[in-house]
């Protein structure tokens, strides 16, 4: 049996190769680098899983991944950062009133539109009512946001969060993303597929613009740094006695050979290295458990009657509709679930970074790169999505040093002082965009079902 072509063995082989790559980085570069890559790989894999639910199961083309991911990040801030009491007393009431008038007003406009019925001027009346609600909300919002942003702007200047453990934000991030997805899905699903793509592209830009500019909510471009962590800090570990003892025992051979100051110095560096790795390992464990839970749920869903139904809808909407399946409701459901998974991953990423920087969200990295992962891994196959997340993130990270090295080799014949050489070496980082585009096109062309193709339900 060929381990690469046999459908049962193939996943083991490709994941084995992936593991080998990561171990290779661990031994040649350092284990810290390897673990950093692994952590981001896991997060990418979760995002890819979410997108695969939308694209692989149901054929929905979502190009707003960045927006849902950023919503997850905002959830991390809102759940975990400490509440700013002064700001809440300064503008909390105003904000609550603004929110209330917005929600209440929207309900009012909706009811008005509904009950106006066939009477004349329906559109105009609705429009005027909506405008009125907007100005009412603005009336409360403007002074409130100004008051909140005026509270100690150098340090806070925002409402703060709930001060809960940051782990909760993973769930909340999922809920935020699900809510946004429900709104957008309600409007655009059921129209042609490209419209969903364009609408999601727009909503993602708007969400990121909101998070960048609404300083009272997330500090906007001023960023929120120093978020709490679900795992211990390196500095604390370095001063814990059991941790030092453990490291001393692991390295007993090397340590006994030395004495006095040299021994203390060596122990200190060893503890420093080990604390970094331990923290990353803790993250990796947490992330892996989330990944495993989501993977198990996704697999169960895919192989259930529900999973067969959504794939039937994907393959032939008309036929599935004729069989009495509610195509639009299933699409909405899947769009919401998939976006929620992306939101969870977004919150996890902000947790890992320990800071929320709305300015860094850009669609190439957060939307289209995830798409490359889905396509390369194999759309419709959850295991494939995970592999895609790992492999493509690995290439994305390693393409930069590789590109730099390639450029310096290519340009080595040039005069070191020449402008062309400096330009080429400076631009090497953009090679990876081209590499990703190339990978996407090649896979779509020559192996459209990806590395691990979808397996049909019948065994």
């Amino acid at each position: 049996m060929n381990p690469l072509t046999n459908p049962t063995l193939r996943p083991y082989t490709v994941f084995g190769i992936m593991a080998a790559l990561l171990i290779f980085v661990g031994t040649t570069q350092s284990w810290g680098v390897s673990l950093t890559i692994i952590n981001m790989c896991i997060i990418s894999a979760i995002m890819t899983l979410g997108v695969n639910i939308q694209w692989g199961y149901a054929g929905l083309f979502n190009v707003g991944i960045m927006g849902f991911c950023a919503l997850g990040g905002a959830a991390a801030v809102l759940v975990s950062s400490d509440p700013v009491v002064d700001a809440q007393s300064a503008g909390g009431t105003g904000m609550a009133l603004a929110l209330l008038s917005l929600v209440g007003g929207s309900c009012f406009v909706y009811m008005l539109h509904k009950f106006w019925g066939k009477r004349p001027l329906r559109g105009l009346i609705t429009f005027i009512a909506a405008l009125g609600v907007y100005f009412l909300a603005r009336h409360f919002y403007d002074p409130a946001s100004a008051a909140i942003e005026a509270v100690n702007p150098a340090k806070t200047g925002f409402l703060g969060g709930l001060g809960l453990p940051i782990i909760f934000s993973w769930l909340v991030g999922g809920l935020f993303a699900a809510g946004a997805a429900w709104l957008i899905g309600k409007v655009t699903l059921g129209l042609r597929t490209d419209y969903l793509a364009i609408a999601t592209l727009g909503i993602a830009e708007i969400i990121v613009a909101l998070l960048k500019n609404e300083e009272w909510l997330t500090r906007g471009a001023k960023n929120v740094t120093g978020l709490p962590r679900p795992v211990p800090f390196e500095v604390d570990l370095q001063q814990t006695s059991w941790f030092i003892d453990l490291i001393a025992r692991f390295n007993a051979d090397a340590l006994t050979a030395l004495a006095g100051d040299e021994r203390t110095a060596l122990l200190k560096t060893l503890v420093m290295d080990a604390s970094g790795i331990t923290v990353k390992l803790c993250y990796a464990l947490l992330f892996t458990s989330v990944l495993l839970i989501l993977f198990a749920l996704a697999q169960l869903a895919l192989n259930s009657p529900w999973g067969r139904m959504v794939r039937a809808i994907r393959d032939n909407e008309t036929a599935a509709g004729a069989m009495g399946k509610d195509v639009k409701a299933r699409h909405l459901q899947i769009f919401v679930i998939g976006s929620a998974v992306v939101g969870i991953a977004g919150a996890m990423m902000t947790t890992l970074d320990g800071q929320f920087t709305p300015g860094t969200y850009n669609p190439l990295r957060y939307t289209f790169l995830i798409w490359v992962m889905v396509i390369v891994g194999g759309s419709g196959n959850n295991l494939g999505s995970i592999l895609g997340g790992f492999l493509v993130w690995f290439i994305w990270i390693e393409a930069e040093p590789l590109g730099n090295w390639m450029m310096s080799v290519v340009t080595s014949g040039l005069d070191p002082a020449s402008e062309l050489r400096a330009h080429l070496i400076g631009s090497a980082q953009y090679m990876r965009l081209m590499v990703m585009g190339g990978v996407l096109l090649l896979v779509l062309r020559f192996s459209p079902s990806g590395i691990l193709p979808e397996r049909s339900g019948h065994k």
Partner: protein
Amino acid sequence: MPELIDLLNALVLMTNYVILPALTYGSQLALGALGVTLVFAILRFSNFAHGDTMAFGAMATILVTWWFQSMGVSFGPLPTALLALPLGIAVTALFVLGTDKFVYKHYRGIGAKPITIVMVSVGVMFIMNGLVRFIIGPSDQRFADGVRFIFKAREFKEWSGLSEGLALRSSQVITIVIAVALVAALFWFLQKTKTGKAMRAFSDNENLALLSGIDPDKIVRITWILAAILATVAGVLYGLDKSFKPFVYFQLLLPIFAAAIVGGLGKPIGAIAGGFVIAFSEVAITYVYKKFLIYLLPTDMEPDSLVQLLATEYKFAVSFVILVLVLLVKPTGLFKGKVV
């Protein structure tokens, strides 16, 4: 009632900050949306790489411009970029035809679903994006030269005696003139020439067009060349008017698509109308009306807030909301576009 002088001042203010910028921006959007709509009408997919085609075309033109400038060639009072435009278009057209030959052609052959081709265009977008940043870098490039103003705000004030100034930048005039000329030429081509008629026939009914002996390869080729011309011109005009930054061109994708859909995908006339609808709403909604109202309202009713409906950062929200409203009320757009 406000006095006549106040009315005139308000009018000048409006022209300077809303009407002229919106006309310029609308022309740029209309050219971009025309490219998207043409590709959609003939090739039947939403081309996500169009924004980056604009960036690529503008980049090619800028490089040629620099080359001309280094040789001391100039276009008198007009920007050198206009002289470089034909070469920029040629390079872009060649590149786009190359992507068709090596990428898109295969998917037409196997009759792929439109959404697959959209995804392929995302791959092309990635490559063009990287290429543009690789060659010219991600930062701002200014390449406008020649005369900057037809008349300045100060000159207008002195001439008219009003307290508000009106500045007419040459890039605004150039944009509008070129856009009108290009659109006229495009419509003449589509309506009067044999190839243009063949393209419209192909768009309306592909099978019937093939039966009547229309060469599909030629139609596709012409479409890509037209798309390249429109994208390059739109990109260069936008760059002359504002500045050239690769990421901004990617972000233009949303208003461009909104314009194309608002007008009705696949309808050239709709793309133009859509471009102006989006541009005027965007500028009018993000404009600060305080000064304008001070001129018009009696002194005791003067507003103390800025009277800005939406902060400028949210201009994407405008095209998005218009897009969603049109999709809800009239999914085929103002001019009954295609729904595949």
